[in-house]
């Protein structure tokens, strides 16, 4: 049982440069993720922004609308061109009633590899074991309704033909 990390692999049918720019340039990242950053990604530097509804999916955008304008912050950890982009954050910390600033951050890494039909992207988030345990329990006690709702929407979204 690994409680410390989450790892996702996805094959994207796009050029390596296209994928690299989508994850390593703040404005492009913001368009799919749903955040408006105050500046560019710079290795070692913190960067703040605000939640905005995503531009790529109207249904998810509707879901994000109640969170619009809420502050969002990361610390860029590494930018290794065309290979690896990494930042630290408080994982999906969007509850305005909670103060996350004194908690440990997790490390999010995006790793790119060439694949036959495009780019194999690995997203790895690690460091969950350092997050206070009471906080982890609280995370889903507080957000239960919202998360369940979002999961249903995502399931619907993913069932759409590509």
């Amino acid at each position: 049982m690994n409680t410390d990390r989450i790892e996702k692999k996805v094959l994207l049918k796009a050029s390596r440069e296209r994928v690299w720019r989508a994850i390593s340039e703040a404005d492009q990242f913001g368009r799919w993720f749903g955040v408006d950053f105050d500046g560019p990604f710079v290795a070692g530097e913190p960067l703040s922004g605000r939640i905005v509804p995503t531009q790529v999916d109207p249904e998810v955008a509707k879901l994000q609308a109640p969170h619009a304008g809420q502050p969002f912050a990361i610390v860029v950890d590494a930018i290794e061109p065309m290979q690896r982009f990494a930042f630290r954050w408080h994982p999906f910390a969007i509850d305005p009633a909670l103060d996350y600033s004194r908690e440990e951050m997790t490390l999010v890494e995006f790793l790119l590899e060439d694949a036959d039909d495009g780019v194999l992207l690995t997203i790895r988030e690690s460091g969950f074991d350092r997050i206070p345990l009471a906080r982890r329990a609280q995370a889903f006690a507080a957000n239960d309704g919202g998360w369940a709702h979002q999961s249903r929407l995502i399931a619907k979204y993913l069932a759409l033909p590509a």
Partner: protein
Amino acid sequence: MKRAAAARSAETARAFSALGDATRLRIVNRLAGGGPLSIVRLTQGNAISRQAVTKHLRALEHAGLVRSRRAGRERLWQLEAQRLADARRYLDRISDQWDAAIARLRAFVEDEPE
């Protein structure tokens, strides 16, 4: 209803703090690999005393993560699967969020003009 939710939340918090210890996680993994096990078996291969293992088992029991029953002269310990499932849920939620973000990234890089 609200009281039930609050009680459940408190139980979950106990489960998480019980798991926030390397030795206890090892005990849980050991039980997951093949329980029920006696204290003697659980102590084998661990560099800690039977007393220490017993103490950790009591903490896990208090959190509802394990339970025990008497079998002759010894006590056998096994996992409470439901509590562990609760403890996994936090990561499952974050995982769902990433799935959604990846779906948006895919739409962005595969379908949208730059």
